[in-house]
């Protein structure tokens, strides 16, 4: 075995010039992913980044790892093929709200339900950026864009709710303006064995500037969001003076002492569903961090297990066995 080298974040940078708009949230995500890879200690040759189409999908070109910049919406399917073909590889999917939830929505839900061991980082900026500003499946109703000049009439997806509904074994949310939170979240995702879905609130400076400002700006962030930590009470606020607890099918604000302990590893996703409903209530904080983290067999694990089981039973197949079966006759 060759000597394992401890790599640094810069070792994951490719020689390609990064071509996102100045001020784009993507820069922060790129740098956080590079740091995460260095801190979890992977080797470059074992990493494959797969993306679809969109601003975020240029990501693989900026990583000095293996990578495929594929076609619109199909990253999850291609990544499934990579991982199943070689389960030793660390597979990351980079996608956006249009790529992953609109044209690629089908592959997204199916790769999550199958629990393919891959990290899916969904850059959500609630807009189509590369095509220059049309509403996306996460744009809020009423958003005025070039294709919705009088306001979008489409009801949006909530990415976290979709991932939970699809049965993803790991679901988390973070934001571009908090590199520390992002690195922490990506670090936990990277260690998860199974499909890990991470939504990143990402600011598009050109077409949807400040769409998350009401939750991400330093002045309001502590009051407008709650950072969920496994095993810790659900408290938030600048002075940690508020707590959350479950009351029937609702989450209610309470004193920090009364706050429920957060457990993302509960078999039932019910609590996570209740928390994500807070997104729709302006009086409640939006949940950030890990909403779900459960263990389940992975697709590639099950596939390779079947290959071994059948091979153990029937023996290593030789080419000749495929042709010369029991019903062969001979003409002499």
């Amino acid at each position, binding site marked *: 075995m060759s000597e394992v080298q401890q790599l640094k974040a810069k070792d994951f940078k490719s020689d390609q010039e990064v071509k996102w708009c100045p001020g784009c949230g993507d820069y922060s995500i790129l740098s956080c992913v590079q740091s995460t890879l260095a801190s979890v200690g992977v080797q470059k040759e074992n990493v494959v980044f797969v993306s679809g189409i969109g601003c975020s999908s240029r990501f693989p070109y900026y990583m000095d790892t293996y990578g*495929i910049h594929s076609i619109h919406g199909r990253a999850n399917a291609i990544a499934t093929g990579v991982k199943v073909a070689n389960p030793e590889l660390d597979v990351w999917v980079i996608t956006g709200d249009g790529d992953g939830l609109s044209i690629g929505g089908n*592959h997204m839900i199916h790769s999550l339900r199958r629990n393919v061991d891959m990290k899916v980082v969904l850059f959500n900026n609630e807009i189509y950026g590369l095509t220059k500003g049309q509403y996306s499946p996460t744009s809020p109703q009423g958003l005025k864009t070039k294709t919705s000049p009088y306001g979008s009439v489409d009801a949006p997806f909530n990415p976290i709710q979709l991932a939970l509904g699809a049965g993803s074994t790991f679901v988390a949310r973070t934001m571009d303006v908090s590199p520390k939170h992002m690195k922490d979240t990506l670090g936990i995702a990277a260690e998860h064995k199974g499909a890990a879905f991470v939504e990143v609130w990402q600011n598009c400076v050109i077409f949807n500037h400040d769409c998350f400002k009401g939750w991400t700006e330093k002045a309001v962030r502590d009051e407008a969001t709650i950072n969920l930590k496994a095993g810790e009470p659900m408290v938030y606020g600048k002075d940690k003076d508020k707590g959350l607890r479950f009351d029937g099918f609702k989450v209610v604000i309470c004193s920090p002492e009364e706050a429920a302990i957060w457990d993302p590893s509960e078999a039932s996703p019910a609590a996570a569903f209740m928390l994500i409903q807070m997104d729709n209530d302006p009086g409640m904080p939006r949940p950030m961090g890990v909403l779900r983290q459960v263990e389940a067999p992975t697709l590639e694990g099950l596939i390779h297990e079947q290959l071994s089981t059948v091979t153990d039973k029937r023996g290593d197949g030789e*080419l000749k066995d495929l*042709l010369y079966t029991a019903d062969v006759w001979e003409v002499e």
Partner: protein
Amino acid sequence: MSSELIRQDEVTIRFVGDSGDGMQLTGTQFTETTAKVGNDLATFPDFPAEIRAPAGSRAGVSGFQVHFSSHDIYTPGDAPSVLVAMNPAALITNYMDLQPGGIILVNTGAFTDKDLKKAALDSNPLTDGTLSGFRVIEEDINQRTMEALADMGLGKKDVLRCKNFYTLGMVYWLYSRPMEPTLEWLKVKFAKKPELIEANSRALKAGYNHGELLRLFQGRYEVPKVTDAPKGHYRNIMGNEGVAIGLVAGAKLAGLDPFLGSYPITPATDILQYMALMKNHNVITCQMEDEIAGICTAIGASYAGRLGMTTTSGPGLALKTEAAGLAVMTELPLVIVNVQRGGPSTGLPTKVEQSDLLQSLFGRNGECPLPVVACACPADAFDSAVEACRIATQYMTPVILLSDNYIANGAEPWKLPAMEDLKPFPVDHPTDPEGFSPYTRDEKLARNWAVPGTPGLEHRVGGLEKDAKTGDVSYDPDNHDIMTETREAKILGIRDSIPTPPLNGEATGELLVVGWGSTYGATRAAVERMQKEGVKATLLHMRHLWPLPHGLLEIFQGFDRVVVPEMNRGQLAKLLKMEYPGITFEPFSKMKGKPFQARELKAHFEELLEDKS
């Protein structure tokens, strides 16, 4: 006492009944037994797209035709000599195809007024003169089956499910086939349901004995086994199974493990089903959420070092189009199997057509060439699939392998290749980081295939145009020009590795028949019959549809007329006109969802030749 055997050289039997009557099973069993007896054979199953159309209706008629003989045959037979009809709808939709004087064995137990009404018949064809000119053998097979199984304590419905085995028994007797292979098969098939082994075996034997005891038939026939077949090992093969085995063999010969990403679609699904059974050959199959995911997982698997494959039919190929372009752009090996069916749109899902040739050649955005290979018959499916794998891996390209519903579900004896004749074409993955670029090409212009997990060869591929040298994204105008030409030259270069197709007949003459795909059996039979009659007719059958092999122009120039029969509106003919503008290609089109018959081809060819004189 047995009747005297009347020797026949070849027989075509068509079994027809309601889709719930088990005709496909009856036909398949007859075929398996006939193969074991040593006859040459060809089959043609013909069934409705509906799993259960209304019982007894014309829409629900399912048929299976088998042609067997004591000599080499190429088609499932033009006109059956025996028709086995289980109900009025089956009889009325098929009797006119029968040879004059042919035998009709009919189940009178299904000819009540109610049955006639279901078949939209105002009068009973058994009594109204419809069948004059045929030898009709009437038998109440429902009643006979019930008698045979009377003491088994089964319900009427279960008993009547066995009537196809009773019928099979009668036909076994008529054509002196042994019952043992089917009796053995029943034991395996119903291992967990002994009462069904017993019931079906009893029905089979009762039908056989009935034929013997009651002398229903005026004579009994034998079709002696083929005596001049080339020496070797044979097995009966259906096209879809041949493709499945060929794909796995092709991957093995390349030194790779296969990965099949697919989505169920008629008539291609069997390939996925066969390959799902081959896990001890390290075959991974993934039934994906849609056609696009099928091809995309295959592309991902190829990038990761397996040989990616995807199987589909026409509508699915349309969905895979964009991803096929990605495989062309990233220059990854991939085999795309299209088992063609009637189109456009959903078209005729269970019928045959060859109308996806131009889709395969040109149906992608951009200048996007890829090689196209076609199977000729079930026995050719293996070789064609291996060839598709060879081209994909040696030239780093997606390849489309065309089959069709007629090949997919037809069966014939396949002479197995000797293992030593299967020549490996091993793939060489680079490992040396020194001077590595993903777009370094070999003398065939194939780029090198570095696999993730290899230290120092980290690289990115993708749908954006790449620099010819570094493999980085490039918008340089001259570079795009170079890359476009390189991709085209690579594909055209494949012709240096393929043979000029062999001619069946002389190199010059009055008529050249150019065929591809499943027209092979019928064109060959028609051309050989004409040759026997002294006509200077020759058949050129093409496996490689793109690139076209060397040497075709010289062949075309040797004939007065060149005719191209296809189950489409002249797609190969169009391609040939484009490539060889000096030659006149005369298309002969059939768009009926049914294969060509040798006699209709021969009649057309003769008409063409008469025209001239």
